[in-house]
């Protein structure tokens, strides 16, 4: 499609022969995909990805409902189901204290209650049956509430709940609507969380990819990438752990140094990557905001300058040296009323003038006098020929292509604006993308060549390549700024999901999981142009919400006549190159390793005998020793003779060491004691003693631990709010060490350590019984984090405590395990950031 005024004519030179040039030039550079699909750049990291909720998770589905609302637009949120999920998933928070109080008064058995008990106990089984019946009749228009249920709910609605039901419902409803709106359009990702730091001058082309990772997407990685036919990583990345999910990564190069700004909801940080090659990135500063930040851009003009916007409509100029300067604060939108709290800001050709955007348009503010000096750059309205309902989605300064040009994308169109001629777009094009373009990346062309602009959408993973020329008129001061030309037709590029068909065939359920992972919404976009080599090429990186980074290469084709139709109309997908196919296999292997699901039948936990006996213990002697042979011979001889053996002492040999002496030497080794007892024949008695001892010891240990835990929790709850993310992380990394993921909900907690040593590693040499479980592993808080239901936590704790020998170690002070914490604690205490919540797809909003 073309926009209405696509072919506005421009008269090249009225004095001479008239020549008309279309606004949409037919000739652009030809770029062709080098491979059949995008190829992964990074291997998937350990730990399974938790997909964000899908529409079917929070929408109401019922035949009745569909019938009632047929034809009506909009969606109904399944509020009741979510409230039910909350009660089931968080019983402690929902009914904790009263549940404990009434614990004895509720009877869950099937038998009839006897007289004395009936006075203060009610039988819940009937109620549960009623509920089940109700569930079965759901959708029946004539359903009648069972009187018993009505009676019960009437009786306890007001006091049973820990949080008053009305309040809880309000909160849940608010959260649900927010979830739904972010499902429809999640603008927190605007700008994208992927940045490419181009190679430093000279030497091998090694750039740096800055991307988020980890299960909570709260780790920031600086990964060196060598640009070759297929780019590959070099060395291990510099890694930083942040206290929130990374929403945006922005970068700019000033004076040879890269400045990388990172935005999470309540924190923004800036890193510097020095000009020297191989120098480590260094965190410079962090700011904390009370309202979520919606934008962070890095100045292309001055080192260490950024602009920050918060959702309330405040824009700051942030300088690492001088701190924050508030430029504007206005909760209202600029040109007309719009409900969206999203705000954006970027730099302009003047280092002291910043742009400020909301959904209705763009303004430029002078930081030296922000109240007085400002002008409108773009308005959603007639001047730009906007459609009804059109809104600004992403503004971007195009300074690297032309110092005074600006890009504005809306859900329908792309506009290029010139600061010198504000309000009148110098280029407009209807992009026809299915989802609004949240990401854009500019690759400036050398003089005389077209600039390349990439647009990316999040939900649909769409990627479009546009080319434009900023001034093809070529007159320097003839007053020709408004000339801007779209070169060639826009081109669709591969998305991540497209590589699915090139991956080896999987089992159906694995295929489904893979599909889910590959079609996760895109979260960022970066690209680089390599122009110096003989074959010009373009590398495009795309990040998905699952943390995968895929890359595709486009090669430049010299202007040839249009390709023959046979090639042009190729509908069958070409096969990926062998190198790409190899990469796919490697990536798949790593993926299946990273999110390996332990088979279900391992529950209940089976104990490996390898735990009880080391291999050396189990290893029998290679053959009967000479002593044994001698003894056997003597035994046989004695039997034949019908006599008996007086003493075992061999005549010619040293007396063999007796088990007793061994025990004395070895000390109280349980295995040895047991064997000795068995040897002596009083094994049964030993077992009796052992069990009674261990029960007593276990009880003691448990009591001790509970006391300790209570103390620790008291301490913890105070600091939990600002250290939780940290402990959470350290626990996560612990978990990844253990191997099988304990995080996925609904899976029984399995702590079989069998799987942990990778095949081929030396056998575990820990003495039996297995080492005492980590204290952190047992704390109820950490168990809750792992998604282990409360009723199972005790079982697990008790089970684990069997292995505990002696009093457990006091808990580690939280934080000592954190690798590199970047957001300084001094910032954190200002107002505690909410701990990162893991959002499970169906439960616990």
């Amino acid at each position, binding site marked *: *499609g073309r926009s209405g005024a696509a072919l506005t004519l421009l008269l090249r030179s009225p004095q001479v022969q008239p020549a008309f040039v*279309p606004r949409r030039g037919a000739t652009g550079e030809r770029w062709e995909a080098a491979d059949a699909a995008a190829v992964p750049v990074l291997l998937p990291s350990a730990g399974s990805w938790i997909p964000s909720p899908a529409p079917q998770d929070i929408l109401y589905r019922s035949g009745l409902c569909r019938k009632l609302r047929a034809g009506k637009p909009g969606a109904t949120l399944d509020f009741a189901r979510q409230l039910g999920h909350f009660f089931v998933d968080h019983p402690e928070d929902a009914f904790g204290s009263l549940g404990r109080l009434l614990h004895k008064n509720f009877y869950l058995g099937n038998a009839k209650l006897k007289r004395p008990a009936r006075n203060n106990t009610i039988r819940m089984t009937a109620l549960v049956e009623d509920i089940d019946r109700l569930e079965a009749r759901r959708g029946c228009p004539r359903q009648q509430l069972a009187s018993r249920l009505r009676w019960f709910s009437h009786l306890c609605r007001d006091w049973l709940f820990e949080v008053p039901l009305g309040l809880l419902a309000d909160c849940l409803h608010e959260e649900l609507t927010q979830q739904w709106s972010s499902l429809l359009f999640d603008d927190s990702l605007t700008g994208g969380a992927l940045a490419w730091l181009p190679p430093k001058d000279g030497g091998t082309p090694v750039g740096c990819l800055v991307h988020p990772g980890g299960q909570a997407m709260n780790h920031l990685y600086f990964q060196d990438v060598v640009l070759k036919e297929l780019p590959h990583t070099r060395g291990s990345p510099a890694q930083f752990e942040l206290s929130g999910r990374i929403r945006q990564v922005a970068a700019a190069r000033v004076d040879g140094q890269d400045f990388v700004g990172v935005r999470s909801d309540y924190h923004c940080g800036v890193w510097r990557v020095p000009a020297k090659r191989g120098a480590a990135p260094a965190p410079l500063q962090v700011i904390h905001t009370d309202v979520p930040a919606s934008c962070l851009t890095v100045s292309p003009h001055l080192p260490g300058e950024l602009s920050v916007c918060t959702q309330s409509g405040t824009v700051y100029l942030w300088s690492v040296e001088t701190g924050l300067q508030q430029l504007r604060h206005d909760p209202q939108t600029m040109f007309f009323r719009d409900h969206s709290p999203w705000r954006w800001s970027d730099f302009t050709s003047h280092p002291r003038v910043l742009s400020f955007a909301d959904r209705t348009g763009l303004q430029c503010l002078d930081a030296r006098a922000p109240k007085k000096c400002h002008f409108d750059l773009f308005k959603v309205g007639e001047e730009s020929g906007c459609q009804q309902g059109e809104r600004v989605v992403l503004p971007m300064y195009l300074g690297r292509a032309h110092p005074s040009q600006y890009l504005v994308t809306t859900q329908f169109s792309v506009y290029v604006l010139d600061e010198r*001629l504000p309000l009148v777009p110098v280029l407009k094009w209807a992009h026809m993308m299915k989802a609004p373009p949240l990401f854009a990346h500019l690759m400036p062309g050398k003089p005389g060549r077209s600039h390349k602009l990439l647009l990316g959408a999040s939900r649909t993973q769409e990627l479009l390549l546009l080319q434009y020329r900023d001034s093809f008129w070529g007159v320097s001061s003839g007053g020709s700024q408004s000339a801007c030309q779209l070169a060639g037709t826009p*081109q669709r590029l591969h998305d991540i999901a497209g590589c699915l068909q090139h991956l080896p065939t999987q089992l159906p359920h694995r295929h489904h999981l893979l599909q889910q992972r590959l079609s996760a919404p895109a979260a960022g976009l970066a690209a680089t142009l390599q122009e110096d080599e003989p074959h010009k090429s373009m590398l495009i990186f795309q990040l998905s919400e699952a943390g995968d980074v895929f890359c595709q290469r486009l090669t430049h084709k010299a202007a040839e006549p249009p390709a023959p139709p046979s090639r042009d109309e190729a509908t069958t997908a070409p096969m990926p190159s062998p190198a790409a196919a190899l990469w796919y296999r490697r990536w798949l292997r790593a993926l299946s390793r990273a999110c390996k699901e332990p088979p279900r039948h391992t529950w209940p936990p089976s104990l490996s005998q390898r735990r009880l006996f080391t291999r050396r213990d189990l290893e029998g002697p290679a053959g009967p020793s000479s002593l044994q042979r001698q003894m056997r011979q003597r035994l046989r001889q004695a039997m034949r003779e019908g006599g008996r053996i007086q003493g075992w002492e061999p005549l010619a040999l040293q007396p063999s060491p007796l088990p007793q002496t061994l025990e004395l030497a070895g000390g109280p080794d349980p295995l040895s004691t047991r064997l000795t007892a068995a040897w002596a024949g009083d094994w049964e008695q030993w077992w009796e003693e052992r069990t009674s001892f261990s029960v007593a010891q276990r009880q003691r240990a448990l009591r001790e631990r509970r006391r300790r835990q209570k103390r620790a929790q008291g301490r913890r709850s105070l600091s939990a709010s600002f250290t939780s993310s940290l402990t959470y992380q350290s626990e996560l990394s612990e978990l990844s060490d253990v191997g099988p993921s304990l995080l996925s909900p609904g899976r029984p907690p399995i702590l079989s350590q069998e799987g942990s040593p990778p095949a081929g590693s030396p056998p575990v040499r820990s003495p039996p019984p297995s080492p005492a479980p980590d204290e952190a592993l047992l704390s109820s808080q950490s168990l809750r984090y792992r998604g282990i239901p409360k009723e199972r936590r005790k079982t697990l704790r008790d089970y684990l405590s069997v292995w505990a020998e002696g009093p457990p170690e006091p808990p580690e002070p939280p934080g000592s395990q954190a690798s590199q914490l970047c957001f300084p604690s001094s910032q954190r205490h200002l107002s505690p950031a909410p701990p990162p919540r893991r959002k499970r797809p169906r439960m616990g909003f």
Partner: protein
Amino acid sequence: SSNEHKLNFKKSKEACLSYIQDALLQKQWKRAAEFLTCYVESLEKDYSREHIGPSEMIWRIGTEILWHHSQSSMKEFNCFMEQMKTLGVKRYLKVCLEHVFHLLCNGQIDEAYQNLSLAESWRFGEQTAIQDKEMKLIQAYRGLLDYCSWSKQKNILLEHGEDGFADLAVEQEMHGFFRKAAVNLKEIIKIPGVWDVFVKCYVDLLEFYGDHNEACQVLNEYAYNSKFPANPNAHVYLYQFLKRQGESKKSLISALKILHDIVPSHELMIDFNTMLQKSKKRKKRRLGLEVIFAALDYAGWKENAKAWSCLARQVKQIVISEKHLDWIKQEWNSRKDWWPAFHFSRYLAKRNWQENKSLSYEKGLVAGILLGKDCKYFKYVSHQGCKAQLKRFRMLKKFVTRHNSAYLKISG
């Protein structure tokens, strides 16, 4: 039920559209064309109330395909366009205009002119405001083509005029073109908007026939009417016109002053500064300093050697005369917190030295005066210059050291 059928039809329509889009974005023009022929069926039941209806879709997509399809010909394109014109009455003029553009880009000026004339005579019911505007555009483009013909005749006449041969018929024809062009061009530039090409052509016509007053009025209106967008080109045209007319320095300066206020980063600011520096009036010279400082604020001017030499010249003048150091001081005050990092970093000193010695000379001078002889930029540049035994740089070093007091005054 019929309702369901409608829904399904709508769904398949959408699916078809997405296939077309898919094909277009992959440059599979033939496939797109095949899908488009299916999509034509959607015209059958066009109940849509969307912003862009199916008929408009077909027009836009069809144009796009024919524009790129390797086997399409101009004849086919014209045929398609004629069909599209009859498809929607409301869009008739728009389609006509687009058709004309296409013809023009293919060099078929005469056909384009015919189409414009046809469109102009088209009437349908009562004209809406939009149609009115589109009609004006059609007339304007016809005016533009008339102007082109006029310009051609004029060139013939001028060539033959040198030979002493004057063709009365050609001259008559030329004047006819002038009249037709002038009427239409005059109309379009009355409507608020950006009409650079039309204004330029109209002024050219007027100037040729010596109607300078009218030309001046048109340009002034175009530049100063507040209903028009703030268009820097309008001021440039006015300035160029005044210059051609040999107007006084004063009026030239006032024209450029307004351009400076709108777009401080305009290319003409160098001319403006040179003009002001030469002025005898203190106020003007002061303005000149302001203008060049303001221009150098912009990223696009960072490496403009000409601009830096303008600033260096003026700063040098002021320092030598030791008068008006306060001017520099005042300009510097609002910039001293960011210019050092923006212009005078060590990195830039190195790069400027490597890429453009004369730029680094001019910048070095300014840096030396504004930031003193210890500033990184000046130190690097003068050191390199002296090492390379360039006389200019040795002089520069001497000059800055001698006038270190000026730095103290500016920064103090």
